[in-house]
């Protein structure tokens, strides 16, 4: 057979994918977009079903024999139990308002990352297997049978949703894809289909108190390291207490702040602040080495596991006998605390309604949960002029702020971080309105998707955020992206390295730690990262 000439061959190459109905597009599990399967150990430890070694790239996922009945039975049970889920399965009119709002779709161009289609993956099973119309009319009514391939597709795409809820802002019916994903993952977990990046931290948290499984002595050692650094920089050594019975307040933050840069600098900021509050106002705040995790990866597994992991916060507060709980900078931690904790494990009658001992401000919105966010607490301190600040120490920074999805969309926490940032630095610039506040774009790593093996999907999902950062970098010379979330700090750092390498990432309390003047401190030469302060560069 004669071989065609190169130009003829080239002309015959079509880069255009075939046009097929979405139900007929075969599933391709692409590297860089999926996370490794959960190891059996962590699943066993928390009593989740079907623990075994399996690989998403294999044909055989080692499902239990009655997997289909389990999945559909689980779905029926949840349709009864969660009215929101039932409504979200029934009322979508496929108007498409959400279609182009998901950061993963915007960055990847994969249509099944459109929220409407992601929901449809599960909704089609609901119609085909559960509703009468779907059972009779099948595909004509948008229904389909639950096959292994359909199950695999649900798994693949439900672990490509960061539960950020941006799509729900634009849905005229208020359908919340995050809640559909939460239920979808719960159903997958009935079959042992979790990912390792979620299962392991959840089990570690259940056993040791934090995601990495850092034991109490190591947790304390890490904080001691930070105190060494703070002493070197300021000449003053904070003396934090751990598990102190009879302390007034318990502080709980994501463990990411304790072990992962640049969160560690935020942690140093907390330590400096607490030292100041203790010395000046006698505030006795203690850290727990048991409730040593603010994050809750149970939230990404099942309602039940979320409740179990969350319970330790109140249990530890009760054991130590504190008045109320102060929480660190985190994203999904706050959605759990704000929207679920009170009904899951509260209300804690043994705690008091949070009142700032420094300003007397009563935080009535937390009257039931008894737990407040450190940024609102600090904003109140600054508003009452209780913190001496030298903003100029952050003059090397030109800062913009990334609203983390859960605090901003999930709890309307919009002004407090901005207020604090404006008080601790001189150069603050907002990104375009359509990319911040309620409309903020996810960092790409929420809901337990910050594993090493799925970096590509995270970079695609992070592109809309990076693109907005680029605009303020080009216009205002922004070089620092601030946020109030530990997952943001981890995800955005790698994302900036790829998309905008000259922009760093910081927590708000790192900047506060730099600006806060401790009585009797030595003249600081460097910031908390050990970099020369503005005006001190020549002396290096």
């Amino acid at each position, binding site marked *: 057979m004669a071989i065609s000439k190169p130009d003829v061959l080239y002309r015959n190459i079509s*880069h255009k994918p075939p046009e097929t109905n979405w139900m007929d597009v075969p599933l391709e599990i692409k590297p860089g977009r999926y996370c490794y399967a959960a190891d059996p150990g962590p699943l066993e430890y928390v009593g989740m079903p079907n623990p075994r070694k399996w690989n998403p790239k294999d044909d055989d996922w080692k499902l239990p024999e009655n997997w289909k009945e389990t999945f559909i039975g689980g779905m029926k049970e949840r349709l009864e139990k969660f009215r929101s889920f039932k409504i979200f399965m029934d009322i979508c009119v496929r108007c498409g308002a959400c279609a182009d709002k998901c950061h993963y779709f*915007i960055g990847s161009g*994969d*249509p099944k990352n459109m929220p409407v289609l992601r929901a449809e993956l599960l909704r089609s099973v609901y119609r085909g297997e559960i509703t009468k119309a779907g059972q009779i009319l099948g595909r004509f009514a948008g229904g389909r049978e639950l096959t292994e391939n359909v199950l695999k597709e649900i798994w693949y795409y439900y672990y490509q949703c960061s539960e950020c809820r941006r799509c729900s802002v634009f849905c005229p019916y208020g359908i919340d894809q995050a809640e559909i994903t939460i239920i979808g993952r719960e159903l997958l977990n009935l079959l042992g289909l979790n990912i390792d990046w979620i299962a392991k931290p959840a089990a570690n948290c259940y056993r040791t108190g934090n995601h990495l499984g850092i034991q109490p002595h190591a947790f304390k050692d890490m904080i001691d390291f930070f105190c060494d650094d703070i002493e070197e920089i300021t000449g003053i050594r904070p003396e934090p207490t751990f598990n102190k019975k009879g302390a007034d307040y318990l502080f709980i933050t994501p463990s990411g702040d304790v072990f992962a840069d640049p969160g560690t600098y935020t942690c140093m900021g907390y330590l400096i602040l607490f030292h100041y509050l203790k010395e000046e106002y006698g505030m006795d705040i203690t850290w727990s080495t048991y409730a040593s995790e603010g994050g809750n990866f149970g939230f990404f597994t099942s309602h039940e596991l979320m409740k179990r992991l969350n319970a330790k916060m109140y249990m530890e507060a009760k054991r130590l006998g504190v008045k109320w709980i102060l929480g660190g900078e985190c994203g999904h931690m706050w959605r759990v605390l704000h929207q679920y904790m009170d009904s899951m494990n509260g209300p804690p009658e043994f705690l008091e309604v949070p009142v700032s001992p420094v300003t007397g401000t009563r935080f009535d919105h937390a009257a039931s949960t008894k737990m407040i966010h450190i940024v609102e607490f600090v904003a109140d301190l600054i508003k009452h002029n209780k913190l001496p600040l030298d903003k100029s120490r952050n003059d090397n920074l030109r800062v913009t702020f990334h609203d983390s999805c859960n605090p901003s969309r999930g709890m309307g926490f919009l002004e407090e971080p901005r207020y604090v940032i404006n008080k601790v630095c001189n150069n603050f610039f907002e990104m*375009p309105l359509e990319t911040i506040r309620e409309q903020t774009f996810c960092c790409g790593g929420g809901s337990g998707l910050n594993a090493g093996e799925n970096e590509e999907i995270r970079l695609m999902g992070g592109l*809309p955020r990076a*693109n*907005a950062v680029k*605009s303020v970098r080009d216009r205002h010379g922004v070089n620092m992206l601030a946020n109030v979330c530990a997952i943001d700090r981890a995800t955005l750092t790698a994302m900036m390295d*790829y998309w905008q390498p000259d922009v760093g990432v910081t927590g708000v309390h790192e900047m506060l730690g730099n600006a806060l003047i401790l009585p009797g401190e030595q003249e600081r030469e460097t910031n908390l990262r050990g970099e020369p302060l503005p005006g001190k560069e020549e002396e290096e």
Partner: protein
Amino acid sequence: MNFSSKIKQNKARILNIWIKKFTDTYSEQSAKFFRDNQGQFSNPVGYTFRVNMEKIFDELFLDNDPEKMSEFVDGITRIRAVQGFTPSVSVSFVPMLRESIWEVCGREIAREGMHQEWLELNVRLEELMQLAFDNYMSCREQLWKQRADFLHSRTHKLLERAGFITKAGK
């Protein structure tokens, strides 16, 4: 009218065809979204492609400065490098530019016998292809480097904090 002017005169048509060809490498709904949504922030992929493709077109017939070209090409390949395309499809926007120009101006170029000029343009496009390939590779290498650095620094930090490392000197 000389060769460059002839092509530049048809810039809008060529760009439209070029962008259509390139976005058609995505599935139908996505291609439509990338093409039709004009928003800088609501459609960063489509916007970045459009802006940089236009700049590449202009620069090709202006100074063809490698430094500037590299910046424009980076805007496109940096996105393509994480989207799971094969390397050849990732950088296929370069041959697609040649096709688009030929589709619009080919007949006239042939009729007026501008073969030498067409050949010269193809040389410039070959250089652009090399630039795109280098850029694509540097993006992929950066991804792997980021992964390696992360693992290295995490391991090192854990060893350091566990007290297993003693540093010489201060």
